[in-house]
């Protein structure tokens, strides 16, 4: 009996042809239309905490141990210099927020937040340099960095203090923020939860916030301390602050003026200089 002529054989061949046709059709559709758009989050009766758990959005590619050179664009700085003694040089990491296509707040039609933050960060670096304090910028050009990349670079450099700089048209003076950690996160084991990596340094960050606010207040400049749900503060493993600068005159163009930026950066540098002895005492940084 020939297998090809049996009824079963025909059925198998028929099914095989249908399968090939379906695969061809699906391949064609995939080629024409690409991948389907992501489905929205399930409706409420199906939502469970695990489905939208913050841990699920944790990056696996941006762990704190990742070297900056692996992720940084060409314009990114290398990790902090390591003295031959094994002790680390005390470093202040300055992070001008936003950049590239992510311009931040449009303060007015010609002033973008990303440009103000970069200019202010450069002035702060210069002011710290004149006081003998080593600092680095996370972004020294109009490049784009994600919050995860910023945190990974900062964590790899292990600075004594991380400062993120923002600018706004609202309010007056300066706000200094510490992290407001999201719910969840288990940092009891050997690994640190990415979303709450700041938890171990939060007390240090609050102490630095208080010291900096007190130092800036002495200059008579309006300053306020708050917590903020602002990334990447919660992903940073060292003391971390964010600054938000607003004009004092109500005129947004003040933010772009060299005099105003110079005054703010000098006040900040003086404040940071007062933190240095305590930062040295609290950590193993080289004198």
């Amino acid at each position, binding site marked *: 009996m020939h297998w090809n002529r049996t009824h079963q054989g*025909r059925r198998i061949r*028929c099914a095989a*042809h249908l399968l090939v046709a379906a695969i061809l059709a699906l391949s*064609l559709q995939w080629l*024409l239309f690409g991948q389907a758009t992501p489905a*929205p*989050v399930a409706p409420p009766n199906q939502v469970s905490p695990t489905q939208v758990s913050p841990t699920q959005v944790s990056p696996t590619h941006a762990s704190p141990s990742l070297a900056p050179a692996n992720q940084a664009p060409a314009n990114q700085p290398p990790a902090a210099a390591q003295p031959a003694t094994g002790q680390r040089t005390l470093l202040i990491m300055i992070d001008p927020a936003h950049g590239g296509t992510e311009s931040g707040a449009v303060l007015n039609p010609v002033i973008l937040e990303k440009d103000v933050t970069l200019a202010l960060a450069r002035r702060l670096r210069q002011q710290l340099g004149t006081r003998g304090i080593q600092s680095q910028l996370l972004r020294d050009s109009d490049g784009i960095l994600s919050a995860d990349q910023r945190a990974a670079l900062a964590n790899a450099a292990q600075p004594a203090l991380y400062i993120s700089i923002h600018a706004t048209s*609202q309010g007056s003076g300066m706000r200094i923020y510490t992290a407001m950690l*999201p719910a969840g996160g288990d940092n009891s084991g050997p690994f640190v939860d990415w979303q709450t990596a700041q938890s171990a340094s939060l007390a240090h960050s609050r102490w630095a916030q208080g010291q900096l606010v007190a130092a800036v207040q002495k200059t008579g400049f309006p300053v306020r301390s708050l917590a903020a749900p602002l990334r990447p503060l919660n992903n940073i493993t060292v003391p971390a602050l964010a600054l938000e600068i607003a004009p004092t005159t109500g005129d947004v163009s003040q933010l772009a003026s060299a005099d105003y930026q110079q005054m703010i950066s000098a006040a900040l540098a003086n404040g940071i200089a007062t933190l240095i002895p305590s930062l040295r005492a609290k950590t193993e940084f080289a004198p």
Partner: protein
Amino acid sequence: MIPRQFAFATVILFSLAVGMSVYVWQLRRREALNPQPSVPAQHVSPPTVGPMEKVTVYVAYDDPGELRAQSISIPLSSGRQQRAEELLRGLLNIYLEKNSPHPLGAGSEVHDVYLVNQGIAVLDLNSAFVNGQTSGVLAEELTVASMIQTLSTNIPELMRVKILVDGKERETLAGHSDLSGFYDVSEVEALAKQLSAQ
């Protein structure tokens, strides 16, 4: 040797698949060229079915950058979920008024509030809400703290809040406030105290 009828069936099915793909591609191209005019989103006022009740809402004030408790009277339904939605819509009505202390964009709306187990609330905002939100650390955290503090004051068992936009996760509200995780209500309460004690 492939039987003739199966070969025909395969050719017909493949032709159908190709034809359908081309048809869908044409439909999508036509839709892309002539997009449907979007209906301007209207803010939905709280329904007047429930009895008027006095509730406390936390209103953001941009000028001093503060959060202030305020009593308002709004009609509230008996269902927990509807009450939560009506509370937030009552708060949004304040922000959408002409002389709002914390203006939001026209058409800002809370699609839904889902109260799920273990003290979790999921807020679903519309895209007009985030598009009209002023970008800034303080401006955005005032919006977030105002909504969560209003909810947690009136729903004491609330512990964690997640904010979605049009049913999807979003990284930030308008470039600053993080929306990727859950908000811990006790952390927001501490922030509300900081924002009130000025």
